[in-house]
């Protein structure tokens, strides 16, 4: 009798506690749809943000992640994957979502630095000791050098690779569009296989042992070294390369329907905080806040907005649309 009374009291107390916390603190779930190489970055960042948000509001926020090729992910969001946030490889893919009315126009001006809280670039991953002496883009077209890069039709990273090579040739003394096209054509002749995504290419280079050099996102190259052994590969940062600005944005339509706009915006702003920037730096992204120290080598950057390209819309049309320069110069190696 006494015992059962005690139990009842405890149950009541537990119930009261449970309801009171339920009233005070909400459970929020966000879905961050991202591209392939950011898995490790966001796994750590999500934990950091959840702790920050708990401290600030008392709410428990769980951020779910989905990763894949940037273009494919954008397509999934267009088809109804309910992302509160996208963090993709290039602005072109976010533009595609905005075109369908899911994001308000002018999204890229909502956050500092073109809505890119971190930047990255394209570097070379080579076999240990760099036996083929690959130092700069010019070395990639030498005969007998086998280059691994994914297919720019399907992979965001591969488009950056392609454009980086193009920019290099374009900016050489006496460089022009025809010279750049010729250079990239020569480079593609050295590519034995085009995988569909960045991780696929990394696996081809690392696991299957194909190729002398992998063109990779800077963070992917360092991650591959850390995961698979510094005794097998070296990262070569070329003295000049392209500046990649992977943009982030709230999917307005979805966030408003979910009622998650506040926390979604806070999430993206937190990427710009010192803590967020440090997490990015730890995962070998280049923080936009120059006060945050980085281990990455200085590079002379070309930009997608330079006159060589004229922005993503134009670059996409010129180079990667059907019949564009890529189609003109790429013939699979037989």
């Amino acid at each position: 009798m006494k015992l059962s009374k005690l139990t009842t009291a405890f149950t009541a107390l537990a119930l009261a506690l449970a309801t009171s916390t339920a009233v005070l603190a909400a459970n929020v779930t966000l879905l961050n749809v991202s591209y392939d190489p950011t898995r490790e970055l966001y796994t750590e960042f999500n934990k950091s943000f959840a702790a920050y948000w708990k401290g600030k509001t008392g709410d428990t926020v769980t951020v779910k992640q989905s990763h894949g090729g940037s273009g494919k992910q954008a397509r999934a969001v267009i088809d109804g994957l309910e992302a509160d946030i996208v963090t993709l490889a290039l602005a072109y893919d976010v533009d595609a979502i905005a075109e369908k009315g899911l994001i308000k126009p002018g999204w890229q001006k909502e956050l500092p630095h073109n809505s890119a809280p971190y930047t990255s670039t394209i570097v070379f991953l080579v076999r240990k000791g760099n036996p083929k002496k690959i130092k700069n883009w010019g070395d990639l077209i030498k005969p007998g050098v086998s280059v691994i890069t994914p297919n720019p039709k399907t992979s965001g990273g591969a488009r950056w690779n392609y454009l980086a090579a193009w920019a290099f040739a374009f900016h050489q003394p006496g460089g022009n569009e025809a010279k750049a096209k010729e250079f990239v054509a020569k480079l593609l002749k050295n590519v034995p296989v085009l995988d569909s995504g960045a991780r696929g290419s990394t696996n081809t280079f690392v696991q299957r042992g194909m190729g002398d050099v992998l063109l990779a996102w800077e963070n992917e190259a360092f991650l591959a070294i850390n995961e698979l052994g510094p005794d097998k590969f070296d990262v070569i940062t070329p003295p000049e390369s392209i500046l990649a600005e992977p943009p982030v944005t709230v999917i307005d339509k979805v966030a408003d329907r979910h009622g998650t706009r506040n926390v979604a915006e806070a999430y993206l702003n937190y990427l710009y905080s010192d803590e967020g920037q440090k997490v990015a730096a730890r995962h070998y992204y280049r923080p936009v806040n120059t006060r945050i120290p980085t281990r990455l080598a200085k590079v002379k950057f070309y930009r997608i907005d330079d006159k060589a390209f004229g922005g993503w819309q134009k670059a996409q049309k010129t180079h990667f649309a059907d019949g564009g320069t890529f189609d003109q110069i790429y013939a699979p190696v037989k």
Partner: protein
Amino acid sequence: MQNNSNATITDRAQTEPAFVRRALVTIALIFLALFLLLPLAAVFSQAFEKGLVVYLEALKEPDTLSSIKLTLITAAVTVPLNLFFGVTAAWAIAKFTFPGKNLLITLIDLPFSVSPVISGLIYVLIFGLQGWIGPWLQDHDIRIVFAVPGIILATIFVTFPFVARELIPLMEAQGKEEEEAALVLGATGLQTFFRVTLPNIKWGIIYGVILCNARAMGEFGAVSVVSGHIRGMTNTVPLHVEILYNEYNYTAAFAVASLLAFLALITLMIKTFAEWKVRQQLENN
């Protein structure tokens, strides 16, 4: 008479010189070892490369557990539905004549001839936000694609021929005399089904269900298209294996893959047993 002629044919076939027979058997065995046993061994050796503790740790990871749960749910919904559909369709086709019968047989085979990617894509085209009824679904807060219902739909589509395909030839071979006899003796339709038809096709059903289940748990292409790849929510076991592999988590990837390999082995065993029983049943008739 018939047995006699069968025997002569068998005898003639065995008059081939011994070395030819041995060469054929050797080629078949080498082929089997190279393409089936070697990869299977590779999966298990990679999975246990770092020991049993690491293997079990990899399986206990929350995202892995959630993918196993999703795969089990998918199979638990898909297999009974396709069992019901398969038995109904096979019964209709084998025991009755009706207009459009050949069309129905062709349609049942459709998922076999369509690429799994297309099987997934049709659901995105119907239920996706840019699709026919996507906007209506969104207004009513119903999620089909990039959620569990889409995964189940795509799986039902790719697995629905298995049970029917297995039962149709079996039931056709058995003919309808026994059912007719039961009806003449005064049994109702349901009694006939449960007491006469069902015992006759029992092992055929088990065979079909096993194959259907294996495919439901192992399907990659169609499910990949409709999944949305949300970690801990919409990744099935095969999709999770790919993710782990892409994250350089090779031991975990092979550990999870070994679950599918176990499933394949168990399927194979039950399948062989069921096949044997089906043959027996046909011979008894």
